[in-house]
Each structure stands twice: as structure tokens, then as C-alpha cells.
């Protein structure tokens, strides 16, 4: 594990610390935690960072508080567009928690997840999400193979 191999999968080492979480951890809550940090750290000079982090935090807080998701468009929109246009390193990595949560746990954020809560008070467990993503990928692959055979 080094800087380059982690950069390749879109993660970053930061100061060298690792946070280990089990499958009971609510990933939206984790994203909210990191977004809260970047929002507080934002110096407020440039617009996308100052306003964008505020909005992303707001949306994540709403998801956590209401235990249901809002449309993915807004979170993704606020995140993805902002990312490359900012002035400094903080701004550039600020939307990363949102983007990577959307990437790895999309169903949780997009509102297509099951609504019931887990005993731990969290929404769906991430392990299940991964399962779903894997199954979807498998289904997509087999569909592709099928259509390939037809053609």
C-alpha cells in the first residue's frame, strides 16, 4: 500500500492514518462526518467550495436525519461539477466523500434502498450494498453476453 496504488483506486492516504469500520457503520453518516469537517475548514474564498460544501452537508444531514434519501441528482450535481474547478487542495478533495459514497453505496443514497432500519439504527448495511452491486454487475455482464450472442 502506497500513495500511487491508493490514488489509482481513488482513495488517498492523507496523513497516513487508516480508519477501519465494520459493516454496521452507516456510510451516509460517515460521508456527513467528513463533509462537516471540510465545510468547517473551508476558508470561504471561492464560491464552489464555500457554497458547495454547505449544500452537500445540508443534503447529507437531511438524509441522515430523515433516514431517507433525496434524489441523487442534487448531491451528485453539487459534488461532481465542483470538484475540478476549485482554487486549492481542500476544495478539490471536499466532494470526495460524497462522490465515493455515491460510487460504492449508490443505492443507499439514491433512494432505491429498502426503507427499514437496521437494529443499529442505520439504513441498509453496506455489505448488502456491495452484494447488490456485484449481482447487478453480474446481471449486466450476462445480458451483454446474451445480446452479443444474438447479434
Amino acid at each position, binding site marked *: 500500500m502506497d500513495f500511487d496504488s491508493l490514488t489509482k483506486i481513488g482513495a488517498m492516504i492523507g496523513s497516513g492514518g487508516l480508519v477501519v469500520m465494520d459493516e454496521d457503520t452507516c456510510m451516509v453518516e460517515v460521508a456527513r462526518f467528513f463533509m462537516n469537517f471540510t465545510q468547517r475548514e473551508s476558508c470561504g*474564498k*471561492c*464560491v*464552489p467550495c464555500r*457554497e*458547495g460544501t*454547505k*449544500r452537500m452537508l*445540508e443534503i447529507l444531514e437531511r438524509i441522515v436525519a430523515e433516514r431517507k434519501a433525496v434524489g441523487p441528482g*442534487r448531491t451528485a*450535481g*453539487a459534488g461532481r*461539477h*465542483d470538484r*475540478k*474547478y*476549485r*482554487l486549492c487542495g481542500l476544495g478539490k478533495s471536499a466532494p470526495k466523500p460524497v462522490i465515493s459514497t455515491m460510487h460504492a453505496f449508490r443505492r443507499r443514497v439514491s433512494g432505491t434502498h429498502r426503507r427499514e432500519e437496521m437494529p443499529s439504527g442505520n439504513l441498509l448495511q453496506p455489505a448488502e450494498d456491495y452484494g447488490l452491486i456485484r449481482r447487478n454487475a453480474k446481471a449486466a455482464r450476462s445480458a451483454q453476453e446474451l445480446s452479443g450472442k444474438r447479434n
Partner: protein
Amino acid sequence: MGYMTIDGRTVEFTDEPNVLAVIRKADIDIPTLCYHSELSVYGACRLCTVENEKGKTFASCSEKPRDGMIVYTNTPRLMKYRKLILELLLAAHCRDCTTCIKSGECQLQSLAHRMGVENIRFENTKEQHPLDFKFPVYR
């Protein structure tokens, strides 16, 4: 001194301090809110963001022109991005345009109109201060 390509047009530059000045000299209108030619570059509004041939974006006001530079000012991505910035600004803004004294000569208003910002998807979080009627203003 040198030449750069802006939206496919070759433009000559001489002593312009930044890419934005060259783009404006080529009669391409790029919106800005924080830039003033006589002041030092602040680079905060990010509305003047442009794209190079590799798809890398940068704020044109804080970039020195280089010979052989290729710049795109109006790609769909940049339009979308400028719109989002205006949306973010308006979301934290008092939007009482009908009673605002700046209405009609407001840069933000005219830019939002020009860029087609039709609805703001974020809640208005502008702090509401109730009017203080405890004491009469006139006696």
C-alpha cells in the same frame, strides 16, 4: 508575445497579464464577478473557468498566457458549471428582486438571466432577521 488558440481562433497576445484579458481582447464575453483589471487577481468567483485541449479546467484570470496555448471558453461542461456557480450564489442570496434597489443593474441578476438559471434546487438559507418595531423611526 505569442499566439494562442481560443475556441479554434488564433489570437495574438502581447503584454496581457492573464488569459482572461486575452480572451476578452478577442471579443469573447466571459462573465466574472470578482475580476477587475486594475486590481490584483483574486480568483474567487471561478466564473471565468476555461478548459484546455486536455480537458483540464482552470480559472483564466489567474493563468499567464503562454505561446501555443489552446483554450476553450464555451463547452457544455463549462456552461453547466457556470450555471451551478450562479445557482449556488443565488441559493444563499436574498432573492427579493422585485423590491431590491439594485434590480435592473445587478450583475448577478443579469448573469443568471443570461445563463438561464431558472430554478434554484437548494433551499434558501439566507438568515431572516425580523424587523425591529420597538421604537418609532420618526418622532
